[in-house]
């Protein structure tokens, strides 16, 4: 009866399937929706939710001080992601709703709309088909903590919140140059964003209330309110500096919005490190294995261990070692499978390096079912590699390894007796690098979602990049 008495031997296909299809996130989203709406009849609600299939549509909120470029960015994002834009103006202008007419009346009277009414308008708008299917972008709402809380109680949660920020003086200056096109509603600027067509230029209007005094007042109001709104969205918020060209701000916003957040899904890393000889694969693998308790599987090491232990495989491999020939793929795969099938590898995950060397080995790995879920290419320029490898020395007496540049021997006496490994000679290194680069193009194509890193930095920096690559979800490919 009790499932916990004997340890589960979960076949590795299950976690792989779970990761690929994002089952955890799927279930989490469904559960969230259930708890927010708490329908009396959960099963039809769940069926409807699954049919809607809108877990990944954009749900974005853009906030920022006046003149930071919110509306411009919001409009560009809309066009790019094909979602609906919701601003105060177009919510009020909705002609089909009674609440909208009420809101319009109040806006004309007092220049603001009461929060309760505004939030009701938002709720109505978000329940429409196009918002559900294609996502929504809220521009400038919520402005105050009260609005933020009201939106939250209705169950409207954005997935990404962008806050634009820039120094006040820049904003006041910028606002003076603002111009609006009355036909399209697009915002232009006299210095930064002047429309090319002369007919648009001719019909541009100066919007009201952009004088310095008014902008300064609006900025004060904004600063007072934004401090209380930001803590409502702790993990999904990103601050982007608006003090740069529009295009830069837009690209930063776009990449952020298309990235997924870290999930709580259970994840066993199966990491593959690829790179030319001397790029630091073994070092990174050792660091990863130490920190995350993964199993460090080095192909060359495995073979040497097999030979040293004189196992059945070892006997078969030894003649190849003696003749200094490459071990055939089939034998290699058998030794690898033996190691990777062991329970500790399946449970804890592994870091593999040294293999595959070319496309055939990669295909063999795939067919055996060892699919890595993170692949890293370590790029190091040729000169750095030469520097790293040709200056390696070993002290025959103590066995200590030195490097003439990075870790020189302490005394002249030791330096005199240092020896170099013949495999580290210049010609050998060049040969191995050529071999790698010939195959790397194929491998890069096979592992489409691989992450390329600059390996030419100090090891701990590279390690941090690898870590962030493993922990964050893989970036979504734009179709």
């Amino acid at each position, binding site marked *: *009866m009790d499932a916990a008495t004997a340890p589960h031997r979960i076949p590795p*296909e*299950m976690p792989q*399937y*779970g990761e690929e*299809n994002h*089952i955890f996130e*799927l*279930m989490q989203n*469904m*559960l969230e929706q*259930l*708890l927010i709406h*708490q329908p009396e009849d*959960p*099963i*039809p609600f*769940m*069926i409807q939710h*699954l*049919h809607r*299939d809108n877990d990944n549509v954009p749900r974005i909120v853009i906030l920022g001080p006046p003149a930071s470029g919110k509306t411009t960015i919001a409009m560009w994002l809309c066009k790019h992601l094909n979602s609906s834009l919701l601003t105060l103006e177009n919510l009020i202008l909705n002609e089909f709703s009674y609440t909208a007419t009420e809101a319009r009346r109040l806006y004309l009277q007092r220049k603001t709309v009461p929060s309760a009414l505004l939030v009701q308008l938002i709720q109505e708008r978000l329940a429409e088909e196009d918002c559900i299917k294609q996502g929504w972008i809220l521009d400038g709402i919520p402005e105050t903590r009260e609005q933020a809380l009201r939106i939250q109680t209705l169950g409207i949660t954005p997935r990404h919140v962008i806050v634009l920020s820039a120094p006040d003086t820049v904003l006041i200056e910028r606002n003076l140059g603002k111009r609006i096109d009355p036909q399209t509603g697009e915002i232009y600027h006299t210095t930064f964003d002047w429309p090319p067509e002369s007919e648009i230029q001719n019909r541009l209007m100066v919007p009201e209330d952009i004088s310095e005094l008014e902008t300064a007042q609006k900025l004060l109001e904004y600063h007072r309110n934004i401090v209380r709104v930001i803590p409502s969205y702790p993990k999904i918020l990103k601050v982007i500096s608006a003090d740069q060209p529009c295009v830069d701000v837009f690209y930063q916003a776009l990449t952020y919005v298309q990235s997924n957040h870290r999930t709580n899904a259970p994840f066993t890393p199966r990491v593959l490190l690829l790179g030319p000889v001397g790029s630091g694969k073994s070092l990174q693998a050792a660091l990863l294995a130490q920190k995350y308790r993964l199993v460090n599987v080095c192909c060359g090491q495995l073979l040497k261990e097999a030979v040293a232990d004189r196992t059945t495989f070892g006997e078969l491999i030894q003649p190849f070692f003696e003749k200094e020939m490459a071990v055939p793929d089939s034998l290699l795969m058998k030794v690898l499978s033996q190691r990777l099938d062991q329970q500790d590898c399946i449970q804890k995950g592994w870091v593999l390096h040294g293999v595959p060397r070319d496309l055939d080995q990669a295909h063999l790995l795939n067919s055996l079912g060892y699919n890595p879920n993170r692949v890293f290419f370590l790029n190091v320029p040729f000169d750095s590699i030469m520097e790293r490898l040709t200056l390696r020395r070993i002290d025959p007496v103590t066995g200590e390894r030195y490097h003439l540049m990075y870790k020189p021997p302490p005394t002249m006496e030791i330096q005199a007796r240092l020896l170099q490994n013949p495999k580290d000679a210049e010609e050998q290194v060049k040969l191995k690098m050529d071999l790698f680069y010939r195959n790397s193009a194929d491998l890069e194509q096979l592992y489409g979602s691989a992450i390329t890193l600059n390996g030419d930095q100090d090891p701990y920096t590279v390690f941090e990049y690898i870590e962030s690559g493993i922990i964050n979800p893989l970036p979504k490919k734009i179709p």
Partner: protein
Amino acid sequence: METSSRELQAAEYLEKHQIKELVSYLTSALLFFRPEKPKEYLISLLERLRIAKVTGVAFPFFMDNSNIVAMFEMMDSSGRGTISFVQYKEALKTLGLCTEDEDLQDDGHKITLDKFKEEVNKRMKEI
């Protein structure tokens, strides 16, 4: 950290509709069968559940007949064909079909396999 009333309300909701067991069942089914299109598969499972509830047909929801028999046999170690009242109550609790303080009638006889099956099915339908 004290639980707010909304949290308590949410916890109650989960209990009442046995959402945790449902989600657990769906996830296990997905991982076991590994269909190509997980969403479609989930929709089909949920549709079957919905129809089963409406028509009252016994659907292999969490346990089917063979599981019930297996459970009964595990508890009935001496093979007499009956289990004691305490075992019966414990079994129902484990299945999540009765609460701690519910008072089941102890009619003095031991519980047979048929009565056990009947009671389990009856409670399943109430969910």
